[in-house]
């Protein structure tokens, strides 16, 4: 068993890594070195980190285009990620896929998708395969509040519950789908009730709290491994930056400064960091900064794929 301090260090390393990687992306975005859209998770880190901390390394994660946090929390290769954003050949998809399709099969991070809700049934299919094989691995699938409006979400819940599959559904509810608030999309704010009607235990964690998310996820994962079928978590959270791209977006007017400030006050990166002894924290942060520097340097010097690669991988051999 890991001691509590090590555990906290690991959690903070993961949170801080995600935060700083995305801040660096935002900083350099104006240079156009990343010629592809980026959807930042700044503000939402605790969901991926909390849930992944409850999973085993050999468990499987599915996510979305807003996938940097999950990719890193699941242990995805940092250099491969930054090179991918740069469109370089050492990228996790040799530069062919960009930020919206991160993948690292070695750590169970499945390819993300730019089409909302598409990975939800895929995660269910993966979980079905695990069950067919008698594996005791499990699958977690992360998706936004907007995803739950797509019919395929309901179809997926129904099938996963019917077959009692080993899957944890994680809704990262950041209150908005692009600039559209929940009120414009949901008749009632009771997603968990709806999910529960499929016989899937469902709980909301209201404030993004890392420990609460991890605790709930751990309980869910335990139940899943016992063969009890799917579980559902609705993690309330908040995106600080614009829906896409590096910018802030209060000027657009679809949300208030107060709302943003209230969530910033609950920043899990800062709060978790504050729980560490200052010297420990400093060491963790320095190591992370070094890794990030190295990753960006790696991507800078990496080469673009050869034009002939355009035709590779259309079909799998």
């Amino acid at each position, binding site marked *: 068993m890991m001691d509590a301090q090590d555990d906290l260090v690991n959690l903070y390393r993961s949170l801080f890594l995600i935060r700083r990687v995305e801040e660096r992306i935002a900083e350099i975005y104006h240079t156009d070195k990343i010629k592809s859209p980026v959807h930042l998770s700044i503000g939402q880190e605790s969901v991926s980190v909390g849930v992944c901390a409850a999973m085993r390394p050999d468990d499987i994660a599915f996510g979305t285009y807003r996938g940097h946090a999950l990719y890193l929390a699941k242990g995805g290769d940092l250099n491969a990620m930054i090179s991918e954003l740069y469109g370089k050949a050492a990228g996790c998809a040799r530069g062919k896929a960009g930020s919206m399709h991160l993948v690292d099969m070695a750590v169970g991070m499945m390819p993300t998708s730019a089409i909302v809700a598409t990975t939800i049934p895929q995660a269910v*299919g993966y979980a079905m395969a695990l069950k067919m094989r008698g594996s005791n691995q499990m699958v977690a699938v992360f998706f936004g509040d907007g995803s739950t409006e797509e019919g395929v979400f309901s179809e997926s819940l129904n099938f996963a519950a019917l077959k009692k599959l080993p899957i944890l559904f994680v809704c990262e509810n950041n209150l908005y789908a692009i600039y559209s608030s929940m009120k414009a999309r949901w008749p009632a704010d009771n997603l968990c009730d709806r999910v529960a009607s499929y016989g899937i235990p469902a709980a909301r964690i209201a404030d993004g709290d890392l420990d609460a998310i991890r605790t709930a996820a751990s309980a869910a994962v335990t139940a899943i491994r016992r063969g009890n079928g799917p579980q559902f978590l609705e993690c309330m959270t908040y995106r600080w930056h614009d829906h896409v791209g590096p910018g802030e977006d209060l000027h657009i007017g679809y949300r208030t400064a107060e709302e943003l400030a209230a969530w910033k006050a609950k920043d899990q990166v800062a709060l978790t960091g504050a729980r560490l002894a200052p010297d420990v924290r400093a060491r963790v942060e320095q190591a992370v900064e070094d890794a990030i520097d190295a990753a960006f340097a790696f991507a800078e010097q990496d080469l673009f794929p050869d034009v002939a690669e355009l035709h590779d*991988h259309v079909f799998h051999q």
Partner: protein
Amino acid sequence: MSSISENREITYAEALHEATVQEMERDSGVFVFGLGVDDPKGMYGSTRDLHTMFSPDRNFDTPLSEDAMTGVAIGAAMAGMRPIHVHQRMDFLLLCMNQLVNCAAKASYVTAGAVAMPIVVRGIIGRSWGQGAQHSQAVHSMFMHVPGLKVVAPTTPHDAKGCMIAAIRDNNPVIFMEHRMLYQLRGFVPTEAYEVPFGKARVLRKGRDVTIVGISHPILDCLRAANSLDAVGISAEVIDPVSLAPLDIDTIADSVSKTGSLLVVDTSWTNCGASAEIVAQIAERFAGDRAVRLRRLGYAPTSCPTTKPLENAFYPDAASIAQAAFGLLHKGEEWRPLATEAKEITEFRGPF
């Protein structure tokens, strides 16, 4: 292939069944699912009793959720399984376009090959009679349009078995097109497992004057048409492409360089259809060198009507194929071959 096996005749549906059984025995990752696959009718027999021969989780019914079930197939494939997803009507694939086109087709590419996508999607073309606008469509050209997808349309029991085995073993999504009027067709099928490689067309009949390419069930009418063309002194070469993506254009082009004329008959509309692609490729290839005569035939440019007189006019048949081939060679001249309904159509009885 042993001589014993070559002497055995079975139906197209039995050939599909046998292929599936053999692959399920070989590889425990192969499973079959879709609406009704485990019901007593077993998809015209092609999936009959697989759930008892193997286990109920290797041949199972699903809720009516085509979109999610396609995603389930994709996810299972990512986990190393080899799912076969069966659709009673190809029209229902229109519910699966997002997963198939946006996800399955791109899985290998956007992961630079880290992810394989061995899924087989069986789409049955609902034609018989009276199926109407929403139960008769063949949308193979929509899939042919998209890189990363393979599309096959075998017409003989032999090719049905071999293509199914090849499709199951393929690491890419294969859209497997089956025409209902072929299920009862009998033919020689080896007992052992074998693959029919994709991208290899078959010349079913040799001829000098015109090349006729038939896609799926229309190939039967093309052969019938070829016989009636003989009567007016036209010798038709008939080609079955078997696989549409990849497409063996060389075999077709070789034939056309001999005959100088090409008629492509599809079991769908011509506009942006498989027939457009074949004609366009031939036209590009001979571009400027030789004035080849080209013509397409397919569904009438309407929805499919249910009433028999209009339905008969909607589909190409042996007579209209023969006439089109004749017209290609004898511009302006008229010839009305005897119209007889194909026996598999005439013999069809409802309700569905």
